[in-house]
């Protein structure tokens, strides 16, 4: 029934690391939730289902817990269903998660021959005789990646995560998305094992696009929780880049490099769990005190909420992949594994990888910009709105939750060898050779890349140096005994006020202008003009709204297409009777021609001839003359 190999236990460990600080935070948050029982029941059922998913040993149990996870998180989003946006987001989430569920169900039905109680090893035997494993791979990817939030199935994240209560957003973004990646690990290794090269490339491409799309939309976002949700898309992309590299290396029989890339990917899963949970908790605390999610209304919160501000800073540095934090280490590993691609013999494949490197590097650069924006606008400067003026630090339990989670972040940075050991064991349980000794050949202080030309990094030395140099500089400052005076910021002769500051829209302005071809944002400028002079106005209001490209092009256009088709079907029902016979005639032609193509050898000349015959009969008999 249940499975306790190292991979499962690794993920159980991750879930525990993610949920224990969250429990404290959640109980601190509880007084502000009206439907307490509703919340608590679903909250614990959600945690239980997360644990169930990663330990179940057959398809039936897996699907049961998977569905339980979806339903409880759906109900948790609806905990505070006051506005229409919440119910809409929940509906959207419900719909998207069930598309994934159907696809997973198809995968399991195909790979178990209908007997869902079968163990994963037996599934492997059935799958190895299956003629089209790529179909199974596609079902699997749609199922798990729709939950993980990879492009183009990511659109629900920026709606669902902001609407959930903050501890739940932290769990959903930090833990639930990773459980979907667990599914990728479990079933790609145990069931679909001999992979085709193309699968790895598909995952790599999806990862690269997700990481860029996530960070670009995060930059244009004003809702702090939606910003973080978009960053989850980015980080899932980074995880998938590592995963895809691992799959590519495995298909090319580069075993060590493949294990290294997979370990990097699991390491990033842990890291993202830690800092994203911490960021959602911080955002939740801010939201809780200021009662608004709009980042433009914050400012100067570091003075009133020091604990939140410091933990948020730690998480921001880590998610921006700056050394010596844990986020840097896993991204370093992923970069190293991509740079080892010179071992690939395949020249055209080798030339593709620099583009993934480019995507990841640009993502890193934009993530820094985005978190300077998120941190600077929220915590620094002056309060921009009354909401942010008279607030205080959150309660003790919530603070404890955040501090515990920042300890998890710090432990991932300090005890990297220990964690890598665990990830290595997980990879061993999936049938890979252990490469721990290759990553740490000279003791635990230096982490090596496994490639022949690889370099190394040592987080502890870096941290020690950084602290040492900074403290000695500070001591030098103290010894100099410099006189210090406090004075207002010079505002060019005006009174220093919050109106002088840059807004979040302004901060992201250059970047959003540069990427305007992607954003296609709607700008609203509202001016009250004095005496019909365009240049003189009393008040002005400027707003930028960005609607995600994927949602606009992919989802809305498919809705439009569905509408058109249904209109056409409706028209069909109201045709004149003669047209039905014409349609039957056309259908017969179609069947005959397709039969000929499938039986005889394909021939372009006859194909074109038949196509034109079909077209003409369709045009004349069905469409007829326009009135």
């Amino acid at each position, binding site marked *: 029934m249940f499975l306790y190999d190292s991979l499962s236990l690794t993920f159980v460990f991750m879930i525990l690391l993610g949920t224990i600080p969250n429990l404290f935070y959640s109980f601190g948050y509880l007084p502000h939730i009206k439907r307490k029982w509703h919340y608590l029941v679903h909250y614990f059922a959600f945690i239980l289902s997360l644990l169930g998913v990663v330990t179940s040993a057959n398809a039936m149990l897996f699907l049961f817990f998977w569905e339980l996870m979806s339903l409880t998180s759906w109900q948790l989003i609806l905990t505070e269903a006051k506005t229409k946006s919440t119910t809409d987001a929940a509906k959207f989430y419900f719909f998207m998660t069930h598309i994934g569920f159907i696809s997973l169900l198809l995968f399991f039905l195909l790979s178990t021959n209908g007997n869902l109680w079968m163990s994963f090893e037996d599934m492997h035997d059935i799958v190895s005789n299956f003629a089209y494993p790529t179909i199974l791979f596609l079902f699997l990817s749609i199922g798990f990646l729709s939950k993980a939030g990879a492009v183009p199935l990511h659109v629900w994240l920026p709606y669902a995560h902001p609407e959930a209560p903050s501890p739940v957003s932290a769990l959903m973004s930090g833990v639930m998305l990773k459980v979907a990646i667990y599914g990728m690990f479990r079933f790609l290794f145990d069931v679909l094992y001999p992979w085709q090269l193309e699968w790895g490339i598909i995952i790599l491409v999806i990862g690269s696009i997700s990481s860029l799309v996530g960070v670009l939309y995060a930059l244009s976002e004003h809702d702090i929780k939606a910003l973080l949700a978009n960053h989850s898309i980015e980080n899932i992309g980074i995880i998938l880049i590592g995963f895809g590299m691992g799959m590519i290396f495995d298909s090319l029989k580069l075993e060590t490099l493949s294990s290294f890339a997979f370990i990097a990917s699991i390491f990033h899963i842990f890291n993202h769990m830690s800092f994203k949970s911490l960021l959602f908790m911080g955002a939740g605390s801010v939201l809780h005190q200021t009662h608004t999610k709009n980042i433009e209304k914050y400012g100067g919160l570091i003075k009133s909420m020091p604990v939140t501000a410091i933990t948020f800073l730690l998480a921001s540095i880590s998610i921006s992949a700056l050394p010596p934090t844990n986020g840097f280490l896993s991204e370093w590993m992923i970069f190293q594994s991509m740079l080892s691609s010179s071992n690939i013999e395949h020249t055209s494949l080798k030339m593709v990888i620099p583009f993934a490197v480019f995507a990841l590097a640009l993502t890193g650069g934009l993530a820094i910009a985005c978190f300077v924006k998120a941190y600077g606008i929220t915590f620094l400067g002056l309060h921009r709105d009354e909401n942010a003026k008279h607030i205080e630090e959150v309660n003790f339990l919530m603070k404890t939750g955040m501090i515990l989670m920042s300890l998890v972040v710090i432990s991932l940075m300090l005890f990297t060898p220990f964690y890598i050991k665990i990830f290595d064991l997980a990879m061993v349980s999936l049938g890979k050779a252990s490469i721990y000794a290759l990553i740490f050949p000279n003791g635990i202080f230096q982490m090596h890349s496994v490639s022949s030309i690889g370099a*190394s990094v040592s987080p502890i030395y870096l941290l020690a140096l950084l602290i040492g140099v900074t403290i000695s500089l500070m001591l030098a400052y103290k010894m100099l005994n410099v006189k210090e005076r406090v004075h207002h910021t010079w505002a060019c002769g005006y009174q220093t006020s919050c109106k002088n500051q840059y807004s979040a829209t302004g901060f992201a302005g250059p970047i959003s202008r540069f990427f305007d071809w992607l954003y296609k944002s709607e700008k609203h400028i509202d001016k009250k003009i004095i005496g019909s002079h365009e240049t003189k106005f009393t008040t002005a209001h400027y707003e930028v709204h960005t609607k995600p490209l994927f949602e606009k092009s992919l989802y809305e256009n498919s809705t439009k297409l569905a509408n058109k088709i249904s209109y056409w079907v409706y028209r069909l029902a109201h045709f004149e009777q003669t047209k039905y016979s014409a349609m039957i005639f056309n259908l017969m032609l179609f069947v005959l021609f397709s039969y000929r193509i499938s039986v005889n050898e394909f021939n372009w000349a006859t194909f074109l001839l038949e196509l034109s015959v079909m077209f003409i009969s369709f045009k004349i008999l069905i469409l007829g003359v326009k009135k």
Partner: protein
Amino acid sequence: MNLYIVTLILLIVIAPILTSFIKSLKMILLFKQPASLFQGYRNISKLLKKETIVSHESSQITRVAPFLVLSPLLITLLFLPPVMHESSYINFVDAFTITGLISLSTFFLMLIGLDSASGFGGMGSSREAFISALAEPAMVLTIFAISMIANNLGISEASKNLSHNFPQEHMASFIFAGISFFILLLAENGRIPVDNPETHLELTMVHEAMILDLTGFYLMLVEVASSIKFIIFASLFASLFMPFGIEFSAPLALLIFIIKLFLIATIVALIEVNVAKLRLFKVPDLLGIAIVFAFLSLITFYILGA
């Protein structure tokens, strides 16, 4: 070990002189009375004597961040490639760590800009975020290319490999990577086509805008940091893209290295005198050129065979 410490101290000592050198060379070229080479030191001693004024609106970040702007750059100095072949060096650090440390310093600089609740600070941070976000991929790709050419990802090993047995067959990709890195040197240090370090004009300033509200010791830290950042990039360029002179004995090799640094500074000064500053929204074009050259370098490398 001794040589290592000597190089380190020399780099720190020479850093303010190098930026003053660019300034005075520019003044000579513009027929002005040149500033002294020690102007950098004069500025530092002036700032040390002054009191610090901290903005009432700013938070603890302003008091801590200037230290964190300087310290990652000081640490980066430790990891630079050796300039003499007898000198010991730290061999395990790769270029990602170095770019990461430089980004860490920029991160705190941008926070300083946002902390003082002034419009200028936010403007500077926003522009810096824009430029450095686009410079990051070019930097990583260039490093990727040069480490492929040198056949090692460790930065010190790469520079040693290049100077000992230079891969003649990859000259083309080497030059492309060099061009890309030089553009990055200009962009990351805020030299003229990207940012003008000498004006305080609100339309153009980037780096100066972020530190407008710093005074005294804090300003000194950030000023030192920017000159150290320049010397980091210059010495990376000198060791990776001018791979000669390291095999001589200690004093001569050191001399050649310093000449290389001043040569780079001269080129930067000549560019600054001859080129107009780009509009902010033209800067991505320049960085785009750097990215394209980095890609070209990698592609030629792969096509000519590893």
